[in-house]
């Protein structure tokens, strides 16, 4: 039987504000437990929330980036439940009147096809703290749980999609696109490992051709694209096996363990809390004017899709390269700075998507930490273009620049990498090579064109060996052709 997978996502995106959504505490990651928990974050009796306007602005920017309706009036509500890391006993969130209404995000799949994923809405809310289940013991040796409230009150937007994705790959493509979008518009640092983006996946399966949706499960808190893909595939497989064995999918919340690649049920729908939402009486409704919206729209940078289109149009890049470069704002900015310095967009694109990306990946750092500046990379590309160095030598220069040996010109000078373009000197070396390899030269001259093509590389290799790779390849080719006639 043929099955169709239906996926909807809920994504928690941490907004990169300096302070929390309802208090002045810092949101910086990695501080000592509870060192960033103020009276408000601790929910001390008598304390009150005050909305951080920067969080509002960032949420509106997201809405504008996905072409969504921005609510002129949105309302914070209380979602009531007891949990030790939820200090007030309720989460301040939005329900009936969220700040961002329906919108859409276009994704591009591996094969280049495009698809629109509809966004149901996005709302503002505060994060909870963390329970630390390490070894804490009271004076009687009883195990205890520690609570760290540093994260409590960190601003989030929760983005809820329609069930528009049909495979794990589509879901991941959407997740990556969303990551690209929120980091590009500067509302989230995108640090997945620190929990800056967390995905809840709603998965159901149905027979191909069915109109009605199957019963869905929700797998919570996936914080990497890899885990998300694996968790979806695992759940799809489980649901199909279950149904094919005559069972039924139960609506439940599941937890995925990336280390063991297993998932388990956390709670079923029957255990669900009644959250008793009601408008928070401590906070006024958030009112946004048309002027506010236009001012924020003006602050938005060029969005990834527009930039991709421009890269294709302006620089003649392939759809694929343009997509990779435009997908990350920092990479795109770097690329454009390289183009400015080098004057050659295609070569710049090759370097940025090739060697630069590979080195960054190997070092596990972002482009903002790249040791080779865009200006230096551009200068190096210029040296390729003006024949000072070959593309092959350029790799050496790049490595040296990466390792802090200075600018490309300094490296070329210090290491003596300047290309040998003096034809007199090169002629001598070529004659030497032909002289040292008489037999091969004779064989070459006797061979037909097809064989010659294969044999030619040998002579080039010998010349490069003698010149330590510094010979200008075009010149070598031309001279060798001539001498081997």
């Amino acid at each position, binding site marked *: 039987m043929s099955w169709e997978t239906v996926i909807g996502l809920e994504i928690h995106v941490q907004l990169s504000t300096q302070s929390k959504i309802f208090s002045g505490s810092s949101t910086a990651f990695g501080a000592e437990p509870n060192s960033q928990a103020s*009276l408000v974050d*601790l*929910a*001390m*009796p*008598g*304390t*009150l*929330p*005050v*909305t951080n306007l920067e969080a509002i602005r960032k949420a509106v920017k997201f809405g504008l980036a996905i072409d969504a309706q921005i609510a002129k009036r949105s309302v914070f509500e*209380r979602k*009531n439940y*007891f949990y*030790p890391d939820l*200090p*007030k*006993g*309720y989460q301040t969130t939005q329900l009936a009147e969220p700040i961002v209404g329906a919108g859409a995000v276009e994704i591009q799949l591996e094969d280049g096809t495009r698809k629109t994923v509809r966004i149901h809405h996005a709302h503002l809310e505060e994060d909870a703290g963390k329970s630390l289940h390490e070894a804490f013991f009271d004076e009687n040796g009883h195990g205890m*749980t520690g*609570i760290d409230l540093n994260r409590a009150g960190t601003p989030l937007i929760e983005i809820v999609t329609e069930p528009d994705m049909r495979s794990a790959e589509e879901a991941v493509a959407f997740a990556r696109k969303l990551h690209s979008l929120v980091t590009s518009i500067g509302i989230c640092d995108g640090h997945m490992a620190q929990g800056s983006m967390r995905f809840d996946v709603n998965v159901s399966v149905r027979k191909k051709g069915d109109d009605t949706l199957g019963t869905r499960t929700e797998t919570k808190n996936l914080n990497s694209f890899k885990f998300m893909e694996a968790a979806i595939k695992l759940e799809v497989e489980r649901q199909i096996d279950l149904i094919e064995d005559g069972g039924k999918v139960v609506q439940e919340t599941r937890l995925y363990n990336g280390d063991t690649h297993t998932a388990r049920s956390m709670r079923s729908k029957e255990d669900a809390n*009644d959250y*008793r*939402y*009601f408008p928070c*009486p*401590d*906070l*006024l409704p958030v009112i946004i004017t048309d002027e506010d919206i236009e001012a924020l729209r003006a602050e938005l940078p060029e969005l990834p899709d527009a930039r991709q289109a421009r890269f294709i149009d302006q620089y003649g890049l392939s759809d694929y390269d343009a997509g990779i470069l435009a997908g990350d704002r920092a990479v795109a900015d770097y690329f454009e700075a390289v183009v400015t310095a080098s004057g050659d967009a295609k070569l710049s694109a090759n370097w940025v998507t090739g060697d630069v990306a590979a080195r960054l990946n190997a070092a596990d750092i972002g482009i903002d930490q790249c040791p080779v500046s865009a200006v230096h990379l551009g200068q190096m590309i210029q040296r390729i273009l003006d024949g000072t160095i070959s593309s092959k030598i350029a790799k050496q220069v790049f490595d040296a620049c990466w390792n802090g040996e200075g600018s490309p010109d300094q490296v070329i000078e210090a290491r003596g990498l300047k290309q040998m373009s003096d034809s007199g000197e090169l002629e001598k070396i070529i004659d030497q090579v032909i002289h040292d390899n008489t037999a091969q030269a004779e064989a070459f001259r006797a061979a037909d064109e097809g064989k010659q093509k294969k044999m030619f590389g040998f002579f080039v290799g010998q010349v490069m060996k003698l010149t330590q790779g510094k010979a200008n390849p075009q010149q070598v080719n031309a001279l060798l052709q001539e001498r081997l006639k």
Partner: protein
Amino acid sequence: MHRKTLTELQAGLARGDYSARELAEHFIKRIQSLDPELNSFISITAEQALAQADAADAARARGEAGPLNGLPIAHKDIFCTRGVRTSCGSRMLDNFNAPYDATVVEKLQAGGAVVLGKTNMDEFAMGSSNETSYYGPVKNPWDLTRVPGGSSGGSAAAVAARLVPAATGTDTGGSIRQPAALTGITGLKPTYGRVSRWGMIAFASSLDQAGPMATSAADCALLLSAMAGHDPRDSTCVDRPVDNYSADLDKPLTGLRIGLPKEFFPATLDGRIADSTHAALRELEKQGATLVDISLPSVDLSVPAYYVIAPAEASSNLSRFDGVRYGYRCNDPQDLEDMFKRSRSEGFGAEVKRRILVGTYALSHGYYDAYYLKAQKVRRLISDDFVRAFEQVDVIMGPTSPELAFGLGAKSDDPVTMYMADVFTIAVNLAGLPALSMPAGVIDGLPVGVQVIGNYFREGQILNVAHRFQQATDWHQQQPAFGGDA
């Protein structure tokens, strides 16, 4: 000294008749000797008070005396006071020393006031008799077998017995005005948003408002001028200049239009209370005011609407008391759920639990529309009634409480009868209006209070009405026999 008003003491301090320290010592002595019978204080902060008094005297000597310099006051134990137990009348917070000062506390301290202690109250301000306190009931100094009203019953009893010249209170459904009426003092609930709620432990956030309780309208004006004002830490606190509430106290009442809603004078009203109220109205008429019969048709629904909205908000506001970070935690919890359940079951008293249950129910899935949303609609209708009324009149008056101080324990087993004690005061909170209660008679040895309701931010006007009344009458000067010779 304890027979004097705040305003008189202010003048005495300025003249150098006595020092702030002498005043503080005098009142602390009264509290220590008389309060064991009254139980109006939960904490007496004598040491800090004397230090504050010395600082006030030093400030005066330097010529830096603030408007309240050296004046002794007490805070309802709902206001957070740094380093001092802030119990909210509950076992839940019996061990809670607040790590910070409420805005009201800060502002009064900045004005130079000397804080003698924290007054008793109904647990989490839930009650109309001060009998729900973990620290035991407060007695009415007019008759020790009767209640002082609530929830600011400790502040009311302490001021009425002249253990302190003035105190702060909070009013969610009448908690300043009803005890003020039952103990023969003047108490003012300001417009919602006029006084910051930062540091005031929340009962029902959309209704709670802090205000002054004293022996005269002039004293309330003096205190309110210091308490009111914008606070960026409270999003619901209004950014609007504070009036000088003492400035217009003496303004003649000529042309004042007083609205008398027929709903505040039901046929069932205690005739003696009706008589006292009418006598007060006649006095104001004599001073040039005109009486206008009006109707507030929706106020009859105030009590049921209030007893949905207030418990709903309370059920959420009180969720933070879970035994995790501060306050009461049960002994030897077996697991998380056991800790939550027993800490809350043992830490909260019966009335608080009743309201948490009612509020939780009202917000539950499937009941929200029928209760909470309906109550909010009623609230809007009540506000609209007042808005319409204030197009015809300047102030609205009636009795503060439908009855005189009742006996201790008389209503303890009947919550609904107890809730009806606030029938005339609750609508004002639902609408967010300012209102005060002033003494207007004594019946069988028990004081009667009359309520004056003003338009939004017209605290100055209702204080003016009360002050003019107090200039012409002496009801506010009548004192209980209790503590009279000490």
